């Protein structure tokens, strides 16, 4: 696969991406119209209605223009990261998102690292100790982990590590640096639990499959150390099926992140999403939805590119 194939692959994907973005932005914009009551009602949301406020809203949101023109103007603003101002706080939506984004990103990355390290590590361990005590314990843990939503895991962790053993703070995001990391540890573990169980299940299956291959048997017969067999022969081949689940993993982390942020009262994007949904703060909701879905779409594109790099067989098929 030379650079030309890469270019066609990426540009095809980008074209699909643009279409998806258009559809998505349209749906997001239409939320305002799906909401019960007129758009003015939605935007006023309990504030006193007077001719002046209604007029101001009409001007700000171009409500006197036709629907498609309104949509176009909204998209134009959204492309400049201007989603209007929150109904609750009357502050710009973008500022609120910017203030909260770093915490959520840190939580996500923290949980991702925990997921990968524990999921792959324990998965390989369980596969190597197949059908022995270690394997059975790990498998049993996985079964429960897969059925345990992150908010339930969060409550259990809070009970053990914040109430019974006061080692970790029960809520909040801390004052930056190590304090933040300390505050985010329990949430990250709660968030990583389901996804780690998922990664573990797939790693174990993949490694068990690879271990039966002739080339692994041969490598062992040649007297290579276990560590070398794992690194050079097993992991590389077992990792491809694990890559294929990274899309699912990512949506786990996003959904779980919303629940975990609510469980631990962390001022992140997920909490913002739920708060604006509860308060029917539609401009805020639109901003968060567009941001989150843009991230999801981009990560999916990235995963597809990573498959191609990791698996030569795919490159042949596309080329």
């Amino acid at each position, binding site marked *: 696969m030379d650079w030309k194939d890469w270019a066609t692959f990426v540009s095809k994907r980008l074209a699909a991406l643009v279409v998806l973005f258009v559809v998505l932005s349209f749906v997001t914009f239409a939320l305002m119209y799906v909401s019960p009551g007129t758009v003015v009602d939605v935007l006023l949301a309990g504030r006193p209605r007077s001719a002046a406020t209604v007029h101001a809203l009409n001007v700000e949101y171009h409500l006197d223009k036709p629907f498609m023109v309104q949509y176009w103007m909204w998209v134009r603003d959204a492309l400049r990261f201007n989603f209007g101002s929150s109904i609750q706080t009357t502050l710009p939506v973008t500022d609120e998102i910017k203030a909260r984004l770093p915490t959520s990103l840190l939580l996500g990355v923290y949980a991702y690292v925990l997921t990968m390290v524990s999921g792959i590590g324990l998965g390989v361990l369980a596969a190597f100790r197949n059908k022995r005590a270690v394997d059975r314990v790990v498998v049993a843990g996985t079964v429960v982990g897969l059925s345990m939503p992150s908010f339930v895991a969060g409550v259990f962790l809070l009970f053990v590590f914040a109430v019974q053993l006061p080692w970790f703070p029960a809520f909040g995001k801390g004052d930056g640096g190590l304090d933040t990391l300390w505050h985010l540890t329990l949430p990250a573990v709660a968030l990583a639990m389901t996804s780690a169980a998922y990664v573990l299940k797939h790693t174990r299956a993949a490694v068990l499959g690879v271990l039966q291959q002739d080339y692994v048997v041969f490598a062992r017969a040649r007297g290579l150390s276990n560590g070398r067999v794992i690194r050079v022969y097993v992991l590389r081949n077992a990792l491809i099926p694990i890559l294929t689940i990274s899309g699912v993993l990512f949506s786990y982390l*996003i959904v779980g992140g919303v629940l975990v942020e609510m469980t631990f009262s962390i001022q992140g994007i997920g909490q913002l*999403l739920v708060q604006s949904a509860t308060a029917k703060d539609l401009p805020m909701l639109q901003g968060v939805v567009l941001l989150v879905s843009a991230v999801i779409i981009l990560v999916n594109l990235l995963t597809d590119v990573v498959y191609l790099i990791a698996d030569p067989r795919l490159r042949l098929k596309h080329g």
Partner: protein
Amino acid sequence: MARQTEIVSTRKPRRYAPRGLAIGFCFVVAGGILFLAIFGPLLAPQDPNAQHLQDVLAGPSSQHWLGTDSLGRDVFSRTIVGAQLGVLGPLVIAVGSFAIGNLLGLWAGYRRGWVDSLVMRWVDLMWSVPTLLVLVVAAGAVGASYWLAVGLLVILSAPFDTRIIRGVVMEQVPRPYVEAARTVGVSGRRIVFLHIWPNVAPVAIANSFLVFASSLVALAGLSFLGLGAPPGTPDWGLMLSESQAMLFVNPVATLAPALMIVVTATVANLIGDWFDEYLTSRMGAT
């Protein structure tokens, strides 16, 4: 977007199907939860919504086995009655998505052509959508409603069923018995429903248990966020969020609904895995 590319090994990861005693235990627990869901209101020792305001935030006692919540309601009774909503919603979703998924999967797998590609595009699109996010946004736009969430979950779970059914149907179509039926002049509809479907059904049933478990978790999560079951309803997710602040005072009240969610979901998942292994091994090579 995240379409699984076929050339990568997409072999099903080994399932952890329980056997013997373990699966018997699962069925007993599932039966118990189902029993609570049907007869819960009769079994609960106290009115789940009665407020004992002189007894607020009490610990476990002979009168309130699991203590009381911040409004003085009996947690034990609420946990029992909570089984009703906990089982009903996911059951509706599992059945609804079973019906849609089977119809679309049979249609797409048997007819192929444009029907197939249309259905599969839809499945791909739905596949990469984080379910809970859609539910939260919908609740924000049109207001929180439990049954709206159930309806949305049917639509969002159906692709999961469709994809699996379609795959199994496509394995059946080239088999001699289908060919034979066609040669004899059996109508397409008859072949699909009376000849192919019985061979596909076990997989679909096993899958329904997994849909049940995942929608139980999704609905509980939505209620936990305060966007599902209406305030005051005895619902495990809602109870968990209402009593979370009491973790320091009466932890049992918080842990009871949490445990119920995990146990119900785990049992449903295990039964689904067991069904998959047991029924498909009886069917021979599928």
